[in-house]
């Protein structure tokens, strides 16, 4: 296969399995995000791909060649570290030329490549600057240029934007995505920020407890989370305990609800119904429709651009986000009727 292939990779630190039997194929030129909470194993997986950590079990191969035991300095996958790891004793140009010096490129070749890369990351004429003289965003660009200098087969980024303020972070995300599209380089980015992952990646691998919980396009993951973990981690989800009646019907307390049909019959009768807050519609009491439940409003937050309504539904907490123009203006203690559209209600394992 052309691209990076990870098969059954496991890594344990003592008794703790940081990465547990992970398999993943990344086609050439794709931008993948490893997304998950801290401690989910995403950084360990990336470090194994870079060769900084050796898998306890499993194989990693690049373009069909097994590289599991190859050390990092032979793989030479360009990597941007969370701390950026710019060499403080070298100038911007010397940092970028580090890999070129190791390759034995002469001064003229190095100079040409430094200029090319500095133009690429939009930092022309910064070659002679000391790293300490740069702003946060400039350092970021230098780290990216340095990792790209060796024309790596795979480009790795470990939470590269976590130290930047919100505005600069968004700018850098767009810039990196454009750069990646231009260079058509296989890129893996580790992040805990779902917004970052959603806005940049071709595919997202959601990680939790050392495993890949779901791998797919950003929208398909958002629309159809595969399990409770993904539903909870990506965006906000309402999770309700339900009893499965058949492949399209569940019971929630006293209510019978129609749900999007599951591809295979549920193994147990106990399940979880997941629905996004923005998919819940609040209707007036008079309308009697299918899939409606009556709830008590506990708290209303008017955010201006949207209204957050917190509700108590048969003992379960529920959140609905509605547009201000659709909001009836009810307050805490009032009864609201919620309509849960059938194809937005997904049944997940309990």
């Amino acid at each position, binding site marked *: 296969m052309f691209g990076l292939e990870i098969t059954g990779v496991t890594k344990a630190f003592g008794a703790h399995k940081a990465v547990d039997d992970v398999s993943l194929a990344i086609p050439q030129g794709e931008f993948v995000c490893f997304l998950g909470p801290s401690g989910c194993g995403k950084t360990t997986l990336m470090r194994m791909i870079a060769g900084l950590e*050796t898998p306890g079990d499993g194989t990693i191969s690049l373009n069909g060649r097994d590289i599991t035991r190859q*050390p990092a300095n*032979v793989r030479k996958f360009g990597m941007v570290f969370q701390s950026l790891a710019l060499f403080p004793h070298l100038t911007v140009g010397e940092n970028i030329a580090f890999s070129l*010096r190791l390759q*034995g*490129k002469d*001064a003229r070749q190095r100079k040409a490549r430094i200029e090319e890369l500095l133009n690429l990351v939009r930092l022309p004429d910064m070659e002679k600057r000391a790293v300490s003289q740069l702003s946060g965003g400039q350092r970021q660009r230098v780290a990216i240029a340095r990792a790209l200098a060796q024309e790596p087969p795979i480009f790795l980024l470990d939470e590269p934007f976590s130290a930047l303020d919100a505005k600069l972070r968004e700018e850098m995300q767009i810039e990196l995505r454009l750069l990646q599209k231009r260079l058509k380089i296989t890129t893996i980015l580790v992040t805990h920020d779902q917004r970052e992952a959603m806005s940049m990646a071709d595919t997202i691998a959601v990680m939790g407890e050392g495993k890949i919980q779901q791998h797919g396009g950003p929208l398909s993951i958002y629309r159809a989370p595969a399990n409770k973990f993904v539903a909870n981690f990506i965006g906000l989800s309402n999770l309700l305990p339900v009893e499965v009646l058949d492949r399209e019907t569940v019971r929630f307390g006293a209510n019978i609800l129609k749900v999007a049909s599951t591809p295979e019959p549920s193994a147990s009768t106990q399940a979880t119904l997941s629905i996004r807050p923005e998919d819940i519609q609040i209707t007036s009491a008079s309308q009697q429709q299918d899939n409606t439940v009556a709830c008590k409003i506990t708290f209303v937050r008017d955010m201006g651009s949207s209204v957050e309504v917190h509700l108590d539904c048969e003992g379960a907490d529920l959140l609905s986000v509605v547009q201000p123009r659709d909001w009836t203006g009810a307050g805490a203690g009032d009864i609201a009727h919620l309509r849960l559209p059938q194809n937005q209600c997904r049944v997940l394992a309990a």
Partner: protein
Amino acid sequence: MTDIPAEPKVAEVDPARTDNVVLTGLLALPALFLTVLSLVPLFLLLQLSFAHHDEGGLWTPSLELTQYAKLLNPLFLKVAAFSFTLAIGTAVVSVAIAFPAAYFISRMRRRAQVTWLVFLLSTLSLSEVLIVFSFQVLLSGSGAMVKALMALGLMSSAHSLYPSFGAVQACLIYVVLPYIILFLYPAVSQLDDDIPAAASTMGASPVWTFLTVTAPIVRGPLLSAGLLVVIWTVGTYLTPLVLGRPQNWTIGIQISNAAMTTGDLPLAAAQAVALVSLMVGLLGLTRWLSGSGSVEP
């Protein structure tokens, strides 16, 4: 900057194996050096303390306890007790001076801080031999100290301030002070300024804050510093020899007398082993009492 040519690289190597090879290469020489020059001499000292003392500075290997028996006389025990009292006194006073000094220095502007550090480091260039000499000059009957005391009316007739216990104590404090300030500097400079600030917003005075908030936070380094001083000064030799009366003489002088004057190396070794054992005992006691604190330099 020079170009570094690309070397041909071995592709498939086990990192754990290479690490071991590298480690052996790195540590072989240091291990040999430390074994020959620290383990062997230490073992020798131990063996020597059980050896038999012959006339004329000679000795024969043996396993007798004669030397240790000699240590049980009241005279030696008195000297040992005095040595430890002197060392602990030095520790308490020098840490009491060094801690606030290091704290104030670490709060200065960079230039002032660097100046202080250079000054402290430069004073380390003064050998203990010369420090002792300077104290002789300063404390002599015609020295600056006596003149100052006379001018202040604190002294009626000019006479030399040494040999005396005070001179020994002051000189020892002098010898360790720059080291202890430098030892405490890293710990003290790491202190978070917001913590004393928080105490003062709750109404604590600067002195109260210093005593009840700042000092307890750096208790570990302070204790380590104190123990370090005890270790350094308990075997002191030059200072009490020159500035003290015979009753101010320490184990250090006893050991060197046994070794260099009497030529009784086994006795000197036994005294040295006893000194180190007492020291280790004190260390253990302090650790046990405090429940924490290490003596890493």
